[in-house]
């Protein structure tokens, strides 16, 4: 019988797991290149792709907010201001990787290639998940926060067992790091050396609760050391830094080096959702200060300064974003026809006799109300 005695640690030096004291950045708020950044600057093609997807993503986000005000969506949690995280993380994923998003990550899901109308099925109230997760390798958007972190670990662990080169990236917020499932997911992933990237967008608030009431840790990235997991603290409003950090973590995971915890410091410009009133818990001045650190402005200044982007290209891209938004508006303004029978169809692989009866009860009820 094999006895697995507790392994004596070869070194208790936590240094290799610790994040930097200040957030890593490749571009400063003015779009200037940061010297000795500690991250690999993405290629020009990647930077241009990030810029393009951020413009399209921001327009999608504002269109979704507008659709909510028109009553087309039940609710919409905006990610405005977090475009560097939403887009940077997704662009760094490879086609074979999986994304595990939350409800605030619609922009990321769209950037991954999912049809925006399918994405918004949840918030329009048509169905809980409107897209095929296997079609895009995107899990359903998760509402009970942090629960999806465990799914990401399981999926990634299964990929390892099956010999597949797949990395799972799970999106979390600052609030979600307080949930027990985050702890369990970080621990399982570290013990199993699962190919997972934990991408925490620290946007300052969990609805109304500020980070200071959420955690007393030096940073959320510091939590990684407790699990024996390498951690990175990055400027979450720097698209280049987000891409570089996630790409590095994906490469490490794919190489069998296990998971990475990334904390990206950012800010939620809008209220939690359209139903929230952010003036009850934060100053306008705070929002203004973060608008000055806008991720799109920063990237655009860098690209135009280097001659990689000009006014004509920006105008063309803006026009493309408008066309996409108009198409989305038009498609979302069509009333959908819902089949109540679907309520009973997917509960089990095969419908149970009792559910069949309840489906008939509802059908009778509907037929009677039509007769009246």
């Amino acid at each position: 019988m094999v006895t697995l005695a507790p392994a004596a640690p070869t070194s208790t030096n936590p240094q290799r797991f610790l994040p930097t004291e200040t957030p890593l950045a490749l571009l400063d708020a003015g779009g200037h290149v940061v010297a000795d950044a500690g991250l690999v600057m993405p290629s020009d093609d990647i930077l241009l792709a990030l810029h393009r997807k951020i413009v399209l993503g921001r327009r999608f986000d504002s269109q979704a907010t507008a659709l909510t005000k028109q009553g087309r969506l039940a609710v919409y949690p905006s990610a405005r201001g977090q475009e560097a995280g939403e887009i940077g993380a997704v662009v760094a994923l490879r086609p074979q990787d999986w994304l595990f998003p939350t409800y605030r990550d619609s922009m990321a899901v769209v950037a991954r290639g999912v049809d925006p109308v399918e994405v918004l099925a949840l918030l329009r109230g048509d169905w809980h998940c409107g897209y095929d997760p296997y079609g895009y390798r995107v899990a359903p958007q998760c509402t009970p926060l942090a629960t999806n972190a465990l799914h990401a670990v399981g999926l990634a662990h299964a990929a390892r067992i099956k010999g597949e080169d797949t990395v799972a990236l799970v999106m979390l917020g600052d609030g979600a790091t307080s949930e027990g499932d985050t702890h369990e997911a970080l621990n399982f992933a570290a013990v199993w050396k699962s190919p997972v990237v934990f991408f925490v967008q620290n946007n300052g608030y969990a609805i109304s609760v500020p980070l200071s009431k959420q955690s007393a840790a030096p940073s959320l990235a510091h939590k990684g050391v407790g699990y024996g997991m390498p951690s990175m603290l990055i400027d979450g409003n720097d698209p280049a830094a987000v891409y570089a950090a996630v790409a590095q973590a994906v490469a490490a995971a794919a190489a069998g080096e296990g998971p990475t915890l990334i904390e990206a410091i950012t800010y939620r410009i809008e209220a939690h959702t359209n139903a929230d009133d952010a003036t009850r818990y934060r100053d306008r001045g705070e929002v203004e200060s973060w608008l000055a650190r806008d991720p799109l402005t920063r990237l655009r200044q860098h690209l135009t300064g280097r001659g990689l982007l000009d006014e004509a290209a920006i105008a063309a891209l803006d026009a493309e974003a408008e066309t996409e938004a108009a198409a989305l508006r038009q498609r979302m303004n069509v009333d959908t026809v819902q089949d109540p029978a679907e309520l009973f169809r997917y509960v089990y692989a095969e419908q149970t006799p009792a559910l069949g009866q309840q489906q008939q009860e509802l059908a009778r009820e509907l037929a009677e109300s039509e007769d009246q």
Partner: protein
Amino acid sequence: MTTLTDRDLEKAPIASPVTMAGALNRALADALREDSSVLVFGEDVGTLGGVFRVTDGLAATFGEQRVFDTPLAEAGIVGTAIGMAMNGLRPVVEMQFDAFAYPAFEQVTSHLAKLRNRTKGRVALPIVIRIPYGGGIGGVEHHCDSSEAYYTHTAGLRVVTPGTPADAYALLRQAIECPDPVIFLEPKRRYWSKETTTLQHTAATLDRAVVRRPGSEVTLISYGGALGTALEAADAAAEEGRSVEVIDLRSLSPFDDETVAASVRRTGRAIVVHEASRFCGYGAEVAARLSEQCFYYLEAPILRVTGFDIPYPPPNLEEHHLPSIDRILDAIDRLQWQDSSGTVKADG
């Protein structure tokens, strides 16, 4: 991966004595052998073979990649199982004890039960959660809960509990093959009950009850740990001249209305027997369904013999809580055997 040869299949099964724990172990081993996507994991299920030894020897036979110990975290076990199932594996996980499964409740109710529905059938989660449940073994607190109603109340889950070793084998094999998530409740006081039987995949059906003992005057409807008591009570009643039928539900969700209602229509009297508390307990659903389906056939109100509405008692007091033969016999006596003319319908 080892596969069965034609020669193996030709071997005639020979009946031999087997415990429920042994039958479950065989079911896991056979499933692991026949399907390379099956995994077994949980707390202490690897090297130790589980605190009840249900996974004994599996890690040695199938390797630590397929049978392994996890960190001590139940939400983690179920949550990672969900991710693994999304990626094509069939996890069979163990919750060490009934009450220790509660940390996984959110993963079970919000994800395991709903993901198929949320994705319109695109994501199936063929996961089995094995949970040793119920009392009668002198366990200290948090080791003896009958937690079935929490799960049966949740749409999207199948809830199964075997009453015999042969059923334990067949139901676990079918649960592992089932495309739906299955909560597999193992009555721990039946783990060491022996039966001389051949273990066959097809000995039971995942969603059907079985008449365990035929009778004509009363139907006892039971399952899991209380089933043995119900059968003994039926024998005792027979000595007093009452013909008692005993139904073993096996599948708590979905509920086999057909088998149960047919019996009660025949006997006209029914008692639900379970260990779990009475209030909003599983028996309430059974009684309500039978009232709806069998009202004109009933000679008496449907009674329940259950645990009291108290937290599970300490070991030295648990005998007062668990349904006993006497309590079942008393309930049978209360089934209004006198008809309207005041004559007793049968010996009683």
